[in-house]
Protein backbone atom coordinates (compact mmCIF):
# COMPACT_ATOMS: atom_id res chain seq x y z
CA UNK A 1 0.00 0.00 0.00
CA UNK A 2 1.15 3.51 -0.82
CA UNK A 3 2.15 5.26 2.41
CA UNK A 4 0.12 8.34 3.31
CA UNK A 5 3.27 10.27 4.12
CA UNK A 6 6.85 9.43 3.36
CA UNK A 7 9.82 11.31 4.77
CA UNK A 8 12.98 10.90 2.70
CA UNK A 9 16.44 11.87 3.95
CA UNK A 10 15.28 15.04 5.63
CA UNK A 11 17.90 17.30 7.25
CA UNK A 12 17.66 20.63 9.04
CA UNK A 13 20.17 22.96 10.71
CA UNK A 14 19.65 26.15 12.68
CA UNK A 15 22.71 28.26 12.06
CA UNK A 16 25.53 26.10 13.34
CA UNK A 17 23.30 23.63 15.19
CA UNK A 18 22.50 20.51 13.21
CA UNK A 19 19.04 19.55 14.47
CA UNK A 20 18.21 16.74 12.07
CA UNK A 21 20.43 14.67 9.84
CA UNK A 22 19.22 12.31 7.14
CA UNK A 23 15.93 11.11 8.63
CA UNK A 24 13.52 8.80 6.78
CA UNK A 25 10.31 7.08 7.79
CA UNK A 26 6.77 6.40 6.55
CA UNK A 27 3.29 6.88 7.93
CA UNK A 28 0.47 4.73 6.60
CA UNK A 29 -3.19 5.55 6.77
CA UNK A 30 -4.73 3.72 9.69
CA UNK A 31 -1.39 3.36 11.44
CA UNK A 32 0.48 5.12 14.22
CA UNK A 33 4.13 6.08 13.84
CA UNK A 34 5.82 6.91 17.13
CA UNK A 35 8.87 9.18 17.25
CA UNK A 36 10.99 8.57 20.32
CA UNK A 37 14.15 10.14 21.58
CA UNK A 38 15.97 12.08 24.22
CA UNK A 39 15.61 15.77 24.91
CA UNK A 40 17.00 17.78 22.06
CA UNK A 41 17.01 14.78 19.74
CA UNK A 42 15.18 16.78 17.08
CA UNK A 43 11.66 15.38 17.46
CA UNK A 44 9.94 18.77 17.53
CA UNK A 45 12.06 19.94 14.64
CA UNK A 46 10.93 16.97 12.59
CA UNK A 47 7.25 17.54 13.21
CA UNK A 48 7.60 21.26 12.56
CA UNK A 49 8.89 20.32 9.13
CA UNK A 50 5.87 18.10 8.59
CA UNK A 51 3.48 20.83 9.67
CA UNK A 52 4.97 23.51 7.45
CA UNK A 53 6.55 25.62 10.19
CA UNK A 54 10.14 24.93 9.09
CA UNK A 55 11.42 24.05 5.64
CA UNK A 56 13.88 21.15 5.40
CA UNK A 57 17.39 21.97 4.21
CA UNK A 58 17.60 18.66 2.36
CA UNK A 59 15.29 15.79 1.62
CA UNK A 60 11.75 15.33 0.49
CA UNK A 61 8.24 14.86 1.79
CA UNK A 62 5.83 12.74 -0.22
CA UNK A 63 2.07 12.59 0.31
CA UNK A 64 0.39 9.66 -1.44
CA UNK A 65 3.66 9.19 -3.27
CA UNK A 66 3.74 12.72 -4.70
CA UNK A 67 6.49 15.11 -3.61
CA UNK A 68 5.01 18.12 -1.84
CA UNK A 69 6.35 21.36 -0.41
CA UNK A 70 4.64 22.41 2.78
CA UNK A 71 5.60 26.07 2.71
CA UNK A 72 3.27 27.28 5.46
CA UNK A 73 1.24 25.76 8.28
CA UNK A 74 -1.81 26.63 6.21
CA UNK A 75 -0.54 24.46 3.36
CA UNK A 76 -0.07 21.57 5.77
CA UNK A 77 -3.54 22.06 7.21
CA UNK A 78 -4.99 22.17 3.72
CA UNK A 79 -3.21 18.92 2.97
CA UNK A 80 -5.13 17.46 5.92
CA UNK A 81 -2.28 17.54 8.44
CA UNK A 82 -3.24 18.79 11.91
CA UNK A 83 -0.66 19.25 14.63
CA UNK A 84 -0.58 19.58 18.39
CA UNK A 85 2.58 21.57 18.99
CA UNK A 86 4.67 21.04 22.08
CA UNK A 87 4.37 24.76 22.72
CA UNK A 88 0.67 24.47 21.89
CA UNK A 89 0.08 27.34 19.45
CA UNK A 90 -2.66 29.07 21.42
CA UNK A 91 -3.34 32.76 21.90
CA UNK A 92 -3.46 33.26 25.69
CA UNK A 93 -5.69 36.34 25.71
CA UNK A 94 -8.37 34.76 23.52
CA UNK A 95 -11.39 32.78 24.67
CA UNK A 96 -11.25 29.01 24.49
CA UNK A 97 -13.81 28.72 21.71
CA UNK A 98 -12.09 31.39 19.63
CA UNK A 99 -8.80 29.54 19.96
CA UNK A 100 -10.43 26.25 19.12
CA UNK A 101 -11.60 27.44 15.72
CA UNK A 102 -8.75 29.82 15.05
CA UNK A 103 -7.81 29.75 11.38
CA UNK A 104 -10.77 27.51 10.50
CA UNK A 105 -13.71 29.55 11.68
CA UNK A 106 -17.17 28.31 10.69
CA UNK A 107 -19.23 31.03 9.05
CA UNK A 108 -22.85 31.61 8.30
CA UNK A 109 -24.62 34.18 6.19
CA UNK A 110 -23.59 35.31 2.75
CA UNK A 111 -21.39 37.89 1.05
CA UNK A 112 -20.72 40.89 3.24
CA UNK A 113 -22.97 39.38 5.90
CA UNK A 114 -20.88 36.26 6.18
CA UNK A 115 -20.00 36.08 9.82
CA UNK A 116 -18.39 33.86 12.40
CA UNK A 117 -20.93 31.30 13.57
CA UNK A 118 -20.31 31.88 17.25
CA UNK A 119 -23.07 29.68 18.53
CA UNK A 120 -21.88 26.69 16.59
CA UNK A 121 -18.28 27.36 17.60
CA UNK A 122 -19.09 27.51 21.30
CA UNK A 123 -21.22 24.41 21.14
CA UNK A 124 -18.66 22.33 19.26
CA UNK A 125 -15.88 23.47 21.57
CA UNK A 126 -17.83 22.54 24.65
CA UNK A 127 -18.82 19.18 23.25
CA UNK A 128 -15.37 18.22 21.98
CA UNK A 129 -13.85 19.08 25.34
CA UNK A 130 -16.55 17.21 27.22
CA UNK A 131 -15.76 14.20 25.06
CA UNK A 132 -12.20 14.44 26.35
CA UNK A 133 -13.42 14.55 29.90
CA UNK A 134 -12.71 18.23 30.30
CA UNK A 135 -15.70 20.12 31.57
CA UNK A 136 -14.80 23.71 30.93
CA UNK A 137 -16.64 26.05 33.17
CA UNK A 138 -16.91 28.93 30.76
CA UNK A 139 -15.91 28.70 27.08
CA UNK A 140 -15.34 32.48 27.20
CA UNK A 141 -12.47 32.04 29.67
CA UNK A 142 -9.16 33.18 28.15
CA UNK A 143 -6.87 30.26 27.40
CA UNK A 144 -4.12 31.99 29.36
CA UNK A 145 -5.92 31.28 32.62
CA UNK A 146 -6.21 27.51 32.06
CA UNK A 147 -3.87 25.06 33.78
CA UNK A 148 -1.11 23.52 31.68
CA UNK A 149 -2.98 20.27 31.24
CA UNK A 150 -6.28 21.92 30.41
CA UNK A 151 -4.53 23.89 27.70
CA UNK A 152 -3.00 20.70 26.35
CA UNK A 153 -6.42 19.11 26.20
CA UNK A 154 -7.85 22.01 24.23
CA UNK A 155 -5.02 21.77 21.70
CA UNK A 156 -5.54 18.04 21.28
CA UNK A 157 -9.30 18.34 20.94
CA UNK A 158 -8.74 20.95 18.26
CA UNK A 159 -6.31 18.86 16.25
CA UNK A 160 -8.55 15.80 16.47
CA UNK A 161 -11.47 17.89 15.28
CA UNK A 162 -9.60 19.30 12.30
CA UNK A 163 -7.19 16.48 11.45
CA UNK A 164 -8.45 15.18 8.14
CA UNK A 165 -5.74 12.72 7.07
CA UNK A 166 -2.74 12.98 9.35
CA UNK A 167 -2.68 13.84 13.02
CA UNK A 168 0.60 14.86 14.63
CA UNK A 169 0.99 15.05 18.39
CA UNK A 170 4.18 16.38 19.98
CA UNK A 171 4.43 15.04 23.53
CA UNK A 172 0.69 15.43 24.08
CA UNK A 173 0.64 13.38 27.26
CA UNK A 174 3.60 14.81 29.12
CA UNK A 175 1.64 17.51 30.93
CA UNK A 176 -1.40 15.33 31.44
CA UNK A 177 -2.75 13.47 34.42
CA UNK A 178 -3.20 9.74 34.17
CA UNK A 179 -6.87 10.01 33.30
CA UNK A 180 -6.37 12.56 30.55
CA UNK A 181 -3.39 10.68 29.18
CA UNK A 182 -5.62 7.63 28.86
CA UNK A 183 -8.17 9.68 27.00
CA UNK A 184 -5.53 10.93 24.60
CA UNK A 185 -4.36 7.42 23.87
CA UNK A 186 -7.93 6.46 23.17
CA UNK A 187 -8.17 9.39 20.77
CA UNK A 188 -5.11 8.23 18.95
CA UNK A 189 -6.58 4.79 18.57
CA UNK A 190 -9.90 6.21 17.42
CA UNK A 191 -8.20 8.40 14.85
CA UNK A 192 -6.23 5.43 13.61
CA UNK A 193 -9.38 3.37 13.36
CA UNK A 194 -11.04 6.14 11.36
CA UNK A 195 -8.24 5.62 8.85
CA UNK A 196 -6.07 8.61 9.75
CA UNK A 197 -2.33 8.41 9.88
CA UNK A 198 -0.96 9.45 13.28
CA UNK A 199 2.49 10.62 14.34
CA UNK A 200 2.89 10.44 18.08
CA UNK A 201 5.87 11.82 19.96
CA UNK A 202 6.48 10.77 23.50
CA UNK A 203 9.13 9.90 26.05
CA UNK A 204 7.02 7.15 27.52
CA UNK A 205 7.43 3.71 25.95
CA UNK A 206 4.35 2.58 27.86
CA UNK A 207 2.33 5.15 26.04
CA UNK A 208 4.01 4.49 22.72
CA UNK A 209 4.07 0.74 22.53
CA UNK A 210 0.36 -0.10 22.89
CA UNK A 211 -0.73 2.30 20.18
CA UNK A 212 2.26 2.42 17.80
CA UNK A 213 2.76 0.51 14.57
CA UNK A 214 6.16 1.95 13.65
CA UNK A 215 8.84 3.40 15.88
CA UNK A 216 11.37 5.97 14.74
CA UNK A 217 14.17 6.45 17.24
CA UNK A 218 16.16 9.67 17.15
CA UNK A 219 19.34 10.51 18.96
CA UNK A 220 21.11 13.82 18.69
CA UNK A 221 19.54 14.54 15.34
CA UNK A 222 20.31 11.14 13.79
CA UNK A 223 18.11 8.12 13.30
CA UNK A 224 18.86 5.12 15.52
CA UNK A 225 16.50 3.07 13.42
CA UNK A 226 12.97 2.92 12.11
CA UNK A 227 11.25 -0.26 13.26
CA UNK A 228 7.92 -1.93 12.61
CA UNK A 229 6.24 -3.12 15.78
CA UNK A 230 6.93 -6.72 14.84
CA UNK A 231 10.66 -6.00 14.64
CA UNK A 232 11.02 -4.70 18.18
CA UNK A 233 9.63 -5.93 21.49
CA UNK A 234 8.63 -3.49 24.28
CA UNK A 235 11.62 -4.43 26.39
CA UNK A 236 14.04 -3.64 23.59
CA UNK A 237 12.27 -0.36 22.84
CA UNK A 238 12.45 0.62 26.48
CA UNK A 239 16.09 -0.31 26.58
CA UNK A 240 16.90 1.69 23.47
CA UNK A 241 15.01 4.70 24.76
CA UNK A 242 16.19 4.55 28.29
CA UNK A 243 19.76 4.00 27.34
CA UNK A 244 19.42 0.79 29.39
CA UNK A 245 23.01 0.41 30.51
CA UNK A 246 23.18 3.97 31.72
CA UNK A 247 20.07 3.57 33.78
CA UNK A 248 21.46 0.44 35.36
CA UNK A 249 24.56 2.36 36.22
CA UNK A 250 22.54 5.21 37.67
CA UNK A 251 20.64 2.88 39.95
CA UNK A 252 23.94 1.37 40.95
CA UNK A 253 25.42 4.75 41.79
CA UNK A 254 22.41 5.70 43.85
CA UNK A 255 22.80 2.51 45.78
CA UNK A 256 26.35 3.34 46.78
CA UNK A 257 25.58 6.93 47.87
CA UNK A 258 24.54 7.65 51.50
CA UNK A 259 20.92 6.87 52.26
CA UNK A 260 19.88 6.35 48.72
CA UNK A 261 20.19 2.58 48.59
CA UNK A 262 16.55 1.90 48.85
CA UNK A 263 15.67 4.21 46.02
CA UNK A 264 18.43 2.76 43.93
CA UNK A 265 17.05 -0.69 44.46
CA UNK A 266 13.53 0.37 43.70
CA UNK A 267 14.65 2.16 40.61
CA UNK A 268 16.58 -0.84 39.41
CA UNK A 269 13.61 -3.04 39.98
CA UNK A 270 11.56 -0.62 37.97
CA UNK A 271 14.15 -0.16 35.31
CA UNK A 272 12.29 -2.51 33.05
CA UNK A 273 9.00 -0.65 33.35
CA UNK A 274 10.66 2.63 34.14
CA UNK A 275 9.34 5.66 32.41
Amino acid at each position, binding site marked *: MEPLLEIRNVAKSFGNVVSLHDISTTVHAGQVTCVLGDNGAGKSTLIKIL*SGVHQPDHGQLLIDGNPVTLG*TPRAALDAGIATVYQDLAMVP*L*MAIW*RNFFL*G*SEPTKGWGPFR*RFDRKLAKEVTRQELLDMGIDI*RDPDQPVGTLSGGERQSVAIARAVHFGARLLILDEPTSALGVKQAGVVLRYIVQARDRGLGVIFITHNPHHAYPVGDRFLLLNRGRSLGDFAKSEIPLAELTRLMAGGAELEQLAHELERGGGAEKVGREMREESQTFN
Partner: protein
Amino acid sequence: MAGTVTGVVKTDERVVRVGLLRRLLVKPELGSLVGALVVFLFFASLSDVFRSPRGIANWLDPASTLGIMAVAIALLMIGGHFDLSAGVQTGTAAITTGLLTTYYGLNTWVALLTSLALVLTVGFLNGYLVVRTGLPSFIITLGTFLMLQGLNLGVTKIVTDTVQVNNFDQVAGYSVLHAVMASTITIGGTGFQIAILWWIVVTIGGSYLLLRTRFGNWIFAVGGDETASTNVGVPVMRTTVTLFMITSAAAWFIGNTQIVRLTSIQAQAGFGQELIYIVAAVIGGCLLTGGFGSAVGASLGALIFGMTSQGIVYAGWDADWFKFFLGAMLLLAVLANQFVRRFAESRR
Protein backbone atom coordinates in the same frame (compact mmCIF):
# COMPACT_ATOMS: atom_id res chain seq x y z
CA MET B 1 -12.95 11.32 42.79
CA ALA B 2 -13.71 13.28 39.66
CA GLY B 3 -16.86 12.69 37.64
CA THR B 4 -16.96 10.04 34.96
CA VAL B 5 -14.94 10.59 31.83
CA THR B 6 -17.75 11.54 29.50
CA GLY B 7 -20.39 12.55 32.00
CA VAL B 8 -21.87 16.02 31.77
CA VAL B 9 -21.23 17.77 35.06
CA LYS B 10 -24.08 20.24 35.33
CA THR B 11 -22.75 22.51 38.03
CA ASP B 12 -19.16 23.01 38.96
CA GLU B 13 -18.54 23.68 42.62
CA ARG B 14 -15.41 25.64 41.72
CA VAL B 15 -17.30 28.39 39.94
CA VAL B 16 -18.71 31.16 42.07
CA ARG B 17 -21.86 32.72 40.54
CA VAL B 18 -21.18 35.81 38.50
CA GLY B 19 -23.72 38.61 38.34
CA LEU B 20 -24.49 40.61 35.21
CA LEU B 21 -22.86 43.70 36.65
CA ARG B 22 -19.66 41.86 37.31
CA ARG B 23 -19.66 40.37 33.87
CA LEU B 24 -19.97 43.86 32.44
CA LEU B 25 -16.99 44.93 34.50
CA VAL B 26 -14.51 42.79 32.58
CA LYS B 27 -15.33 44.35 29.21
CA PRO B 28 -12.42 46.40 27.89
CA GLU B 29 -14.68 49.41 27.33
CA LEU B 30 -16.09 49.69 30.81
CA GLY B 31 -13.26 51.69 32.28
CA SER B 32 -13.49 54.25 29.51
CA LEU B 33 -17.26 54.48 29.87
CA VAL B 34 -16.84 55.39 33.51
CA GLY B 35 -14.05 57.78 32.55
CA ALA B 36 -16.24 59.48 29.96
CA LEU B 37 -19.01 59.94 32.50
CA VAL B 38 -16.64 61.39 35.08
CA VAL B 39 -15.11 63.81 32.59
CA PHE B 40 -18.54 64.88 31.37
CA LEU B 41 -19.87 65.47 34.87
CA PHE B 42 -16.73 67.31 35.84
CA PHE B 43 -16.84 69.85 33.02
CA ALA B 44 -20.63 70.04 33.05
CA SER B 45 -20.40 71.19 36.65
CA LEU B 46 -17.86 73.86 35.69
CA SER B 47 -19.62 75.32 32.67
CA ASP B 48 -23.25 75.34 31.67
CA VAL B 49 -22.39 76.03 28.05
CA PHE B 50 -20.47 72.75 28.06
CA ARG B 51 -23.62 70.82 28.85
CA SER B 52 -25.91 72.87 26.58
CA PRO B 53 -26.87 71.38 23.17
CA ARG B 54 -24.56 73.73 21.29
CA GLY B 55 -21.76 72.93 23.69
CA ILE B 56 -22.33 69.23 23.16
CA ALA B 57 -22.45 69.69 19.38
CA ASN B 58 -19.18 71.55 19.69
CA TRP B 59 -17.21 68.92 21.58
CA LEU B 60 -18.74 66.05 19.68
CA ASP B 61 -17.24 67.54 16.53
CA PRO B 62 -13.52 67.00 17.27
CA ALA B 63 -14.43 63.77 19.06
CA SER B 64 -16.06 62.40 15.91
CA THR B 65 -13.07 62.97 13.62
CA LEU B 66 -10.75 61.59 16.23
CA GLY B 67 -13.14 58.73 16.95
CA ILE B 68 -13.19 57.46 13.37
CA MET B 69 -9.41 57.33 13.32
CA ALA B 70 -9.26 55.88 16.82
CA VAL B 71 -11.47 52.94 15.84
CA ALA B 72 -9.21 52.13 12.89
CA ILE B 73 -6.12 52.49 15.05
CA ALA B 74 -7.74 50.34 17.74
CA LEU B 75 -8.25 47.52 15.25
CA LEU B 76 -4.62 47.87 14.22
CA MET B 77 -3.44 47.92 17.82
CA ILE B 78 -5.49 44.84 18.68
CA GLY B 79 -3.70 43.29 15.72
CA GLY B 80 -0.44 44.13 17.48
CA HIS B 81 0.75 47.17 15.55
CA PHE B 82 1.06 50.95 15.56
CA ASP B 83 0.72 53.37 12.70
CA LEU B 84 2.65 56.56 13.31
CA SER B 85 2.02 57.62 9.73
CA ALA B 86 -1.77 57.65 10.16
CA GLY B 87 -1.94 61.36 10.99
CA VAL B 88 0.23 62.45 8.10
CA GLN B 89 -1.70 60.17 5.76
CA THR B 90 -4.82 62.28 6.35
CA GLY B 91 -2.80 65.18 4.98
CA THR B 92 -1.44 63.13 2.08
CA ALA B 93 -4.94 62.08 1.06
CA ALA B 94 -6.36 65.60 1.22
CA ILE B 95 -3.40 67.21 -0.53
CA THR B 96 -3.56 64.66 -3.33
CA THR B 97 -7.27 65.22 -3.87
CA GLY B 98 -6.81 68.96 -3.66
CA LEU B 99 -3.86 69.25 -6.02
CA LEU B 100 -5.32 66.89 -8.59
CA THR B 101 -8.57 68.83 -8.76
CA THR B 102 -7.63 72.45 -8.24
CA TYR B 103 -4.25 72.45 -10.00
CA TYR B 104 -4.55 69.66 -12.54
CA GLY B 105 -8.28 69.94 -13.16
CA LEU B 106 -8.91 66.23 -12.73
CA ASN B 107 -12.48 65.08 -12.22
CA THR B 108 -13.28 65.22 -8.51
CA TRP B 109 -14.34 61.59 -8.21
CA VAL B 110 -11.34 60.34 -10.10
CA ALA B 111 -9.15 62.48 -7.85
CA LEU B 112 -10.81 60.99 -4.77
CA LEU B 113 -10.23 57.49 -6.04
CA THR B 114 -6.62 58.33 -6.91
CA SER B 115 -5.91 59.65 -3.44
CA LEU B 116 -7.58 56.57 -1.97
CA ALA B 117 -5.40 54.33 -4.11
CA LEU B 118 -2.34 56.28 -3.01
CA VAL B 119 -2.91 56.01 0.73
CA LEU B 120 -3.97 52.40 0.40
CA THR B 121 -0.63 51.78 -1.26
CA VAL B 122 1.09 53.44 1.67
CA GLY B 123 -0.91 51.25 4.04
CA PHE B 124 -0.03 48.19 2.02
CA LEU B 125 3.65 49.04 2.10
CA ASN B 126 3.55 49.66 5.85
CA GLY B 127 1.93 46.30 6.47
CA TYR B 128 4.03 44.42 3.96
CA LEU B 129 7.30 45.77 5.34
CA VAL B 130 6.26 45.12 8.92
CA VAL B 131 5.40 41.49 8.24
CA ARG B 132 8.22 40.72 5.84
CA THR B 133 11.04 42.29 7.82
CA GLY B 134 9.68 41.43 11.23
CA LEU B 135 10.69 44.91 12.35
CA PRO B 136 8.44 46.68 14.83
CA SER B 137 5.69 48.71 13.16
CA PHE B 138 6.76 51.63 15.32
CA ILE B 139 9.97 51.99 13.36
CA ILE B 140 8.62 51.19 9.90
CA THR B 141 5.75 53.65 10.19
CA LEU B 142 8.07 56.23 11.73
CA GLY B 143 9.98 55.97 8.46
CA THR B 144 6.87 56.42 6.31
CA PHE B 145 5.71 59.17 8.67
CA LEU B 146 8.88 61.16 8.02
CA MET B 147 8.85 60.42 4.31
CA LEU B 148 5.23 61.42 3.86
CA GLN B 149 5.78 64.57 5.88
CA GLY B 150 8.57 65.52 3.50
CA LEU B 151 6.51 64.55 0.46
CA ASN B 152 3.46 66.50 1.58
CA LEU B 153 5.51 69.64 2.03
CA GLY B 154 7.81 69.20 -0.96
CA VAL B 155 5.07 68.42 -3.45
CA THR B 156 2.74 71.12 -2.19
CA LYS B 157 5.48 73.70 -2.47
CA ILE B 158 6.55 72.63 -5.93
CA VAL B 159 3.02 72.71 -7.26
CA THR B 160 1.51 75.68 -5.45
CA ASP B 161 4.57 77.70 -4.39
CA THR B 162 2.83 78.03 -1.02
CA VAL B 163 2.32 75.62 1.85
CA GLN B 164 -1.35 75.02 1.26
CA VAL B 165 -3.89 73.95 -1.32
CA ASN B 166 -6.83 76.34 -1.69
CA ASN B 167 -10.11 76.80 -3.52
CA PHE B 168 -11.41 73.32 -3.06
CA ASP B 169 -14.95 74.74 -2.94
CA GLN B 170 -14.68 75.51 -6.62
CA VAL B 171 -14.31 71.92 -7.78
CA ALA B 172 -17.15 70.14 -9.54
CA GLY B 173 -19.34 68.11 -7.23
CA TYR B 174 -18.31 70.07 -4.15
CA SER B 175 -21.90 70.43 -2.96
CA VAL B 176 -22.39 66.66 -3.00
CA LEU B 177 -19.17 66.13 -1.14
CA HIS B 178 -20.11 68.80 1.34
CA ALA B 179 -23.49 67.19 1.98
CA VAL B 180 -21.91 63.79 2.57
CA MET B 181 -18.88 64.80 4.53
CA ALA B 182 -19.26 68.18 6.10
CA SER B 183 -22.91 69.20 6.37
CA THR B 184 -24.64 69.76 9.68
CA ILE B 185 -27.79 68.08 10.84
CA THR B 186 -30.05 70.27 12.91
CA ILE B 187 -31.61 68.62 15.92
CA GLY B 188 -33.66 70.81 18.25
CA GLY B 189 -32.19 73.98 16.80
CA THR B 190 -28.58 72.91 17.18
CA GLY B 191 -26.46 71.92 14.23
CA PHE B 192 -24.53 68.68 14.62
CA GLN B 193 -21.74 67.75 12.22
CA ILE B 194 -22.58 64.83 9.98
CA ALA B 195 -19.19 63.36 10.90
CA ILE B 196 -20.80 62.36 14.21
CA LEU B 197 -23.12 60.08 12.26
CA TRP B 198 -20.20 58.54 10.38
CA TRP B 199 -18.43 58.07 13.67
CA ILE B 200 -21.33 56.03 15.03
CA VAL B 201 -21.45 53.97 11.84
CA VAL B 202 -17.72 53.29 11.98
CA THR B 203 -17.88 52.31 15.65
CA ILE B 204 -20.67 49.83 15.04
CA GLY B 205 -18.95 48.51 11.93
CA GLY B 206 -15.65 48.13 13.78
CA SER B 207 -17.30 46.26 16.63
CA TYR B 208 -19.11 43.96 14.23
CA LEU B 209 -15.90 43.26 12.35
CA LEU B 210 -14.00 42.50 15.53
CA LEU B 211 -16.49 40.36 17.35
CA ARG B 212 -18.66 38.76 14.72
CA THR B 213 -16.47 37.92 11.76
CA ARG B 214 -13.65 35.49 11.20
CA PHE B 215 -11.44 38.38 10.20
CA GLY B 216 -12.08 39.79 13.65
CA ASN B 217 -10.97 36.52 15.19
CA TRP B 218 -7.76 36.76 13.19
CA ILE B 219 -7.14 40.31 14.38
CA PHE B 220 -7.20 39.20 18.00
CA ALA B 221 -5.07 36.17 17.17
CA VAL B 222 -2.38 37.99 15.20
CA GLY B 223 -2.07 40.58 17.94
CA GLY B 224 -2.18 38.04 20.73
CA ASP B 225 0.44 35.61 19.44
CA GLU B 226 1.76 35.84 15.93
CA THR B 227 3.65 32.54 15.97
CA ALA B 228 0.69 30.61 17.28
CA SER B 229 -1.52 32.25 14.66
CA THR B 230 0.82 31.27 11.86
CA ASN B 231 0.99 27.73 13.18
CA VAL B 232 -2.76 27.22 13.13
CA GLY B 233 -3.03 28.65 9.63
CA VAL B 234 -4.20 32.22 10.18
CA PRO B 235 -3.08 34.31 7.17
CA VAL B 236 -0.94 36.67 9.21
CA MET B 237 0.36 38.66 6.27
CA ARG B 238 -3.08 39.26 4.80
CA THR B 239 -4.59 40.19 8.17
CA THR B 240 -1.83 42.62 9.05
CA VAL B 241 -1.74 44.28 5.64
CA THR B 242 -5.52 44.64 5.66
CA LEU B 243 -5.40 46.32 9.06
CA PHE B 244 -2.86 48.87 7.84
CA MET B 245 -5.01 49.47 4.78
CA ILE B 246 -8.10 49.98 6.92
CA THR B 247 -6.17 52.64 8.82
CA SER B 248 -5.20 54.26 5.53
CA ALA B 249 -8.79 54.21 4.33
CA ALA B 250 -9.90 55.94 7.54
CA ALA B 251 -7.14 58.51 7.07
CA TRP B 252 -8.36 59.07 3.54
CA PHE B 253 -11.88 59.71 4.78
CA ILE B 254 -10.80 62.06 7.53
CA GLY B 255 -8.36 63.96 5.31
CA ASN B 256 -10.93 64.51 2.63
CA THR B 257 -13.53 65.52 5.18
CA GLN B 258 -11.11 68.17 6.28
CA ILE B 259 -10.43 69.61 2.85
CA VAL B 260 -14.16 69.62 2.13
CA ARG B 261 -14.92 71.42 5.36
CA LEU B 262 -12.16 73.98 5.21
CA THR B 263 -11.98 74.19 1.39
CA SER B 264 -8.22 74.21 1.85
CA ILE B 265 -5.55 71.99 3.31
CA GLN B 266 -2.08 72.75 4.58
CA ALA B 267 1.03 70.76 3.91
CA GLN B 268 1.49 69.85 7.54
CA ALA B 269 -2.11 68.83 8.24
CA GLY B 270 -2.43 65.80 10.46
CA PHE B 271 1.14 65.90 11.67
CA GLY B 272 1.30 64.97 15.35
CA GLN B 273 -2.24 63.60 15.44
CA GLU B 274 -1.02 59.99 15.31
CA LEU B 275 -0.13 60.09 18.99
CA ILE B 276 -3.59 61.35 19.83
CA TYR B 277 -5.23 58.48 17.95
CA ILE B 278 -3.14 56.04 19.95
CA VAL B 279 -3.95 57.82 23.19
CA ALA B 280 -7.66 57.58 22.45
CA ALA B 281 -7.40 53.87 21.68
CA VAL B 282 -5.41 53.24 24.85
CA ILE B 283 -7.75 55.26 27.04
CA GLY B 284 -10.43 53.07 25.49
CA GLY B 285 -8.80 49.95 26.88
CA CYS B 286 -6.62 48.72 23.99
CA LEU B 287 -3.46 47.00 25.11
CA LEU B 288 -0.32 48.46 23.53
CA THR B 289 1.01 44.94 23.24
CA GLY B 290 -1.89 43.78 21.08
CA GLY B 291 -4.55 41.14 21.38
CA PHE B 292 -6.96 43.07 23.56
CA GLY B 293 -9.26 46.03 23.11
CA SER B 294 -12.50 47.16 21.52
CA ALA B 295 -13.86 49.57 18.94
CA VAL B 296 -16.41 51.00 21.34
CA GLY B 297 -13.66 51.64 23.86
CA ALA B 298 -11.61 53.55 21.30
CA SER B 299 -14.64 55.69 20.51
CA LEU B 300 -15.15 56.40 24.17
CA GLY B 301 -11.47 57.31 24.38
CA ALA B 302 -11.99 59.79 21.56
CA LEU B 303 -15.01 61.17 23.39
CA ILE B 304 -12.97 61.67 26.57
CA PHE B 305 -10.26 63.42 24.60
CA GLY B 306 -12.76 65.63 22.77
CA MET B 307 -14.52 66.60 25.99
CA THR B 308 -11.27 67.32 27.77
CA SER B 309 -9.68 69.43 25.07
CA GLN B 310 -12.82 71.55 24.63
CA GLY B 311 -13.81 71.41 28.29
CA ILE B 312 -10.60 73.14 29.29
CA VAL B 313 -11.63 76.07 27.11
CA TYR B 314 -15.17 76.08 28.50
CA ALA B 315 -13.80 76.03 32.00
CA GLY B 316 -11.74 79.06 31.12
CA TRP B 317 -8.42 77.66 32.27
CA ASP B 318 -5.18 79.37 31.25
CA ALA B 319 -4.15 78.27 27.78
CA ASP B 320 -0.49 78.03 28.72
CA TRP B 321 -1.36 75.18 31.02
CA PHE B 322 -3.48 73.36 28.44
CA LYS B 323 -1.00 70.55 27.92
CA PHE B 324 -0.59 70.16 31.65
CA PHE B 325 -4.30 69.63 32.16
CA LEU B 326 -4.43 67.33 29.18
CA GLY B 327 -1.62 65.20 30.54
CA ALA B 328 -3.16 65.09 34.00
CA MET B 329 -6.51 64.09 32.50
CA LEU B 330 -4.89 61.37 30.44
CA LEU B 331 -3.10 59.94 33.44
CA LEU B 332 -6.21 60.10 35.59
CA ALA B 333 -8.29 58.47 32.88
CA VAL B 334 -5.96 55.54 32.34
CA LEU B 335 -5.36 55.08 36.05
CA ALA B 336 -9.09 55.04 36.75
CA ASN B 337 -9.58 52.73 33.81
CA GLN B 338 -6.95 50.37 35.12
CA PHE B 339 -8.35 50.52 38.62
CA VAL B 340 -11.82 49.57 37.41
CA ARG B 341 -10.39 46.73 35.35
CA ARG B 342 -8.35 45.38 38.23
CA PHE B 343 -11.30 45.63 40.56
CA ALA B 344 -13.50 43.89 38.02
CA GLU B 345 -11.00 41.10 37.51
CA SER B 346 -10.56 40.51 41.19
CA ARG B 347 -14.32 40.20 41.46
CA ARG B 348 -14.68 38.05 38.45
